[in-house]
């Protein structure tokens, strides 16, 4: 154990090494040290064995009925999002189609098309900027600061 000072610096790193959370450089240093140091190697193997035992530990499951209840609630929230996506994309599709029909309509002059096109582009732009602002607020203000 005369190496203990050197080993001390590897003590915590062995935990990071086990979890695959080290930088490539540190990981190589630890790997080299483990090849040459029996003490650290056995301490690594023990941590590894302990981790495996904990991973295999059995804990009772949640009541099936309550699990189902919660998952159903969460799933309906998921459906809500899917519905919104469907509505918005349907709307966008109709808009694009209408725009195309309008564009190829030969009974209108170029000036008329230009003016209406400008109005639509303005509306869409406004909508997007509001949406962007809302998403940004949601991220910045509420996500982290709220006490859960």
């Amino acid at each position: 154990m005369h190496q203990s000072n050197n080993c001390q610096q590897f003590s915590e790193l062995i935990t990071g090494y086990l979890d695959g959370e080290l930088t490539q450089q540190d990981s190589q240093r630890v790997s080299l040290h483990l090849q040459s140091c029996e003490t650290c190697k056995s301490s690594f193997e023990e941590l590894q064995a302990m981790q495996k035992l904990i991973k295999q530990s059995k804990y009772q499951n949640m009541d099936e009925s309550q699990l189902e209840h919660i998952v159903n609630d969460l799933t309906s929230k998921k459906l809500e999002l899917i519905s919104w996506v469907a509505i918005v994309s349907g709307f966008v599709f109709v808009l694009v189609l209408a725009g195309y029909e309008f564009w190829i309509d030969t009974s209108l002059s170029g000036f008329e098309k230009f003016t209406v096109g400008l109005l639509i582009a303005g509306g869409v732009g406004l909508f997007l900027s509001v949406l962007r602002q809302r998403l940004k607020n949601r991220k910045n203000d509420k996500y982290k600061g709220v006490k859960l």
Partner: protein
Amino acid sequence: MGSVLADITQGAFKLALQLVKQPAEAHDILQDAAIIALSHPAAPHPNSGGFKPWFYKVVRNKSIDSLRKVKRSEGEPFIEEVVPDQVQHCPQRILENAQTQQYIKAALEELPLQQREIIVLKDFHGLSYQDIANVLDIPKGSVMSRLHRARCALKLKLMPIVEE
């Protein structure tokens, strides 16, 4: 029910159980956490990747609330055991016995909450250091050292059992 959401919910229940130790409490915690997940404006969507660590965080905080409440009803204040920041002596050679499997759960339960939670988040639930930092609200840089101290403390708990 093999869906991702069922797995996350089941995992979150086990986390609550690992922290508060009482199945009835753990069920209540999950109920509360689900309501928050459905109603909180900051809740990530259940099908987004960020949902699991977020939900775990809610469950962890609710578990601490619950522990606090139990203590209060027993008339004593809830004082979270503060674990010293110093690296303690890390025992060598303890796990030579196959019987350790049956002791490890008991040993985990004896650890202070602060050590128990970080070990189960990593070793049982398999969260990354980044996710652990989010769940526990600590800097990512301190996850490794805290986890290492906790693992050494667990080894220490296992030592006398094996020597018997």
